[in-house]
């Protein structure tokens, strides 16, 4: 494939580009869903093609073709340069890409059990079986699914990068819904989106869906008659690690994307409340809060060997002991900010431009256990498993709902609460974090559906998370 990407780059240069890169991506995916005891959907998709970026002056152009031939590669390169030239009609400031030594290498994720070697009958039996179990234990609607992606990509740049990668991603999800007179209640396992990683089918086996199906169905049924989460202006809030992953994703991960901070997403995904001039001094959260973006974490969903500009994966400090110190960036955005590339640029297919995406953005563990947090809380609420998520276009004001809550009274976990929600302002909320889970509870949650960009791209991101306690949080917001 290198001959194709090199031909595309050469064509873009011949058409006037001063820099060009080209990616061939081949992806195959499988998505099986079961509903109420029956596999009701089995979809496979294969995608292959070449996408070329060309830079003329300070203006980018991109063109993609779903065809792998020398002629198509050259055409894509030429058309990318034409698009870049049109961009020059409304050109911006001088752009020099952040320096990056031309990497040459190969990388592959570790896959112990090839998902494509697992018989469809076995996959179907697993999903059908757990949905039947959920129906038997009180669910009115039981759903389960698995998804697998197998991606190979080859990158060449006009600076000499030559990188190829093979990444296998896999995971599964299930949920039980109980339908009441006036509302529905749902419980999911392992989380609202399931759990995914850059791993093989061994991840699905480790999840033990059968061992958790009955429990979540019973919880969904029980939630229908549970008392509602009280509406309180300020209380102690303990979040489980799955909800913490969502909290990190929405209120930290997106906020530190440099393209947002620079205003490149202002009209669509939004901007960020963060001001680059305060990087290094701004108090983002309490001293317990240390967040990294680390694409080298084994098995996490946001892991890779090189980003889609050929920058080798490396950990980036985002928040250190509560102070904001870093961003997610690529070569163009980093250059404008005067920092090295964070190696966080990816595209979700051959037909999309690489853009700033989260890698594995997560908390480093703290000193506490979940039991210690509960024991230390006299009056509060515990919540887990994300149900709804909404945050403003500056990533500052959020309101999140969870599937399940529990009253905490006198250091003990009490009765179940339905429809728990909480709301807050990011730095105030993170500043109130006074207890943080330890390494034994550190989970690399995978989010396979992070939407961003125009045309839309779906990113796969990882979020190491632990339970945590926050003080003085508003809970129980209702319509």
């Amino acid at each position, binding site marked *: 494939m290198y001959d194709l990407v090199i031909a595309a780059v050469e064509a873009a240069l011949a058409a006037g580009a001063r820099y060009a890169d080209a990616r061939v991506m081949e*992806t195959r995916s499988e*998505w099986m*869903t079961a509903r109420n005891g*029956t*596999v*009701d*959907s*089995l979809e496979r998709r*294969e995608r*292959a*093609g070449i996408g070329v970026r060309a830079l003329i002056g300070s203006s980018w*152009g*991109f*063109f*993609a073709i*779903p*065809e792998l*031939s020398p002629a*198509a590669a050259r055409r894509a390169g030429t*058309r990318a340069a*034409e*698009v870049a030239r*049109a*961009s020059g*009609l*409304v050109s*911006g*400031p001088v752009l020099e890409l952040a320096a990056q030594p031309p990497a040459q290498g190969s990388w*592959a*994720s*570790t896959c112990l059990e090839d998902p494509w070697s697992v*018989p*469809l*009958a076995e996959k179907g039996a697993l999903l059908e079986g757990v949905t039947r179990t959920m129906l038997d234990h009180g669910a009115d*609607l039981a759903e389960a699914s698995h998804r697998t992606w*197998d991606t*190979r990509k080859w990158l060449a740049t006009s600076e000499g990068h030559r990188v*190829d990668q093979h990444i296998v991603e896999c995971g599964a999800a299930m949920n039980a819904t109980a339908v009441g007179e006036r*509302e529905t209640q749902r419980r999911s396992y392992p989380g609202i989106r399931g759990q995914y990683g850059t791993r093989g089918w061994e991840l699905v086996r480790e999840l033990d869906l059968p061992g958790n199906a009955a429990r979540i169905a019973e919880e969904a049924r029980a939630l229908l008659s549970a008392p509602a989460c009280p509406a309180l202006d300020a209380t102690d809030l303990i979040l489980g690690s799955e909800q913490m992953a969502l909290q990190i994703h929405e209120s930290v991960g997106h906020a530190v994307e440099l393209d947002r901070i620079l205003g*490149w*997403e*202002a*009209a*669509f995904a939004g901007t960020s409340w963060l001001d680059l001039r305060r990087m290094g001094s701004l108090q983002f959260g309490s001293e317990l809060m240390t967040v990294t973006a680390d694409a080298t974490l084994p098995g996490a969903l946001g892991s890779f*060997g090189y980003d889609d500009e050929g920058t080798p994966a490396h950990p980036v400090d985002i928040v250190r002991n509560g102070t904001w110190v870093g961003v997610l960036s690529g070569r163009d955005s980093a250059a404008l900010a005067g920092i090295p590339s964070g190696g966080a640029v990816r595209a979700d297919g051959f037909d*999309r*431009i690489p853009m700033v995406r989260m890698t594995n953005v997560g908390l480093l563990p703290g000193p506490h256990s979940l039991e210690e947090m509960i024991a230390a809380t006299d009056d509060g609420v515990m919540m887990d498993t994300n149900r709804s998520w*909404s945050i*403003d276009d500056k990533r*500052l*004001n959020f*309101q999140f709902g969870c599937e399940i809550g529990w009253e905490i009274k006198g250091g003990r976990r009490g009765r179940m609460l339905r*429809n728990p*929600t909480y*709301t*807050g302002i990011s730095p105030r909320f993170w500043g109130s974090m006074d207890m943080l889970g330890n390494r034994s509870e550190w989970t690399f949650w995978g989010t396979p559906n992070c939407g961003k960009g*125009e*045309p839309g791209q779906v990113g796969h991101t990882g979020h190491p998370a632990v339970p945590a306690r926050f003080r003085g949080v508003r809970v129980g917001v*209702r*319509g």
Partner: protein
Amino acid sequence: MTDAQPARGVFATDRSGAVGGATDPLDIADQVLHLVRAKAADAEAEVEVRHGEEALTRFASGFIHQNVAEETRRVLLRVALDGRSAGSSMDGFDAGGLARLVDDVLEVARHRPEDPDWPGLAEAAPAAGVEHWDDATASAPPDERARRVREFVDAALGLETAGSCLTAGTRVAFANSAGQRLVGRATVAGLSGIARTATSDGSSRDASVGLQALDGGVLGRRAAARARESADAIDLEPGRYEVVLEPQCVANMLEFLFLHGFNGRAVQEGRSFARLGEAQFDRSITLLDDATDTGQVGVAFDAEGTPKRRLEVVRAGVTTAILHTRRTARKAGTESTGHATEESGQRGAVPANVVLAAGDRPTSALVAQVERGLLVTDFWYTRILDPRTLVVTGLTRNGVWLVEGGRVARPVRNLRFTQSFIEALAPGAVRGVGSERTLILDGLEAASLVPALHLASWNFTGGARG
């Protein structure tokens, strides 16, 4: 994690070039059906083929920072063997790839569990003779998009701007082994953007089948005016206010109503609020899905080859129809309404051409009726809390104004709301429907054609700053 593997393709077959150079979607579809018949004569099969070009030019901080275009070639194949169904898709029309696609989907169908709800294939039936197509837009060069961006930026007179201009043209063919064969083509163009002051954003947008209908200067001036009018906003105490919701907000509300309410799958699973024949909405609400409306976009048949038609979902407040795919229709003992998409396996029936019947007053007249309330430009990040009650939380964006005594009094800062969309549209809750409809795109092949609404009450639960 770093064990290198030799570079090689996933696909064993050649992927270099179209079938004999053919790119006509119906030719490709026929060839795929032929391949299926050769491998499994008794298989039921349906094929959708798409071919076209899509392009999008983004600008921010007053310059074009992303500018992309792509050729699209897509083949979706679904087969059923003795009630075992499977679907697969690929990009490209190369002969080797298509043969592999057919082999793979037949293999998957043979080995998957039985599918007792397989609904069979659409029978041969013609689609409506409507076509949302413009030749110039289908072949619009990047300069044409850049020119409109230039106009938008210049018209903002120094305010920072951001937004996008898109064009797309797609030819679609559908064929199945039951004899259904349909072709269609559609173009779409959209221009949307914001202008920004130090304390505010103002937005504007327009969309059409043809790019020539979009005027960057008009939209840039409108966004800049809105931004200036919403500068130096004040905080407003959260609570219940009457509201005038501009079309983007209305389209967003309707999206939730369709996905969680009028969706046949949601009804069958007991998650929907919809009850046929009941007056669930205000009398002023008449809601349709109508691919034949000349102001709409897309082709006149769905992913299962079912022709689309004008479907009245709510008539004068009364729920009159539920949207179905062939699968949910079979369960309900009725016919598909033509609302299958590639994602229907996960989402159920999805509308592509939402139309809310217009009222008799312009938006300005709706505002003039407001005693004390808010004029809201856009909603942002709306997420459902419960599908039965359709309680949704979200925020305002790109301009909110306090209206007092029928006049816009002052801009206010963005607010968070937590509101049941059903209650907001309930009988007696709608005080007015605007007469001007705006086309709000939802991707490249779906859109809502909607006016502004004046609603009696909206529950704002907090300021965006806490």
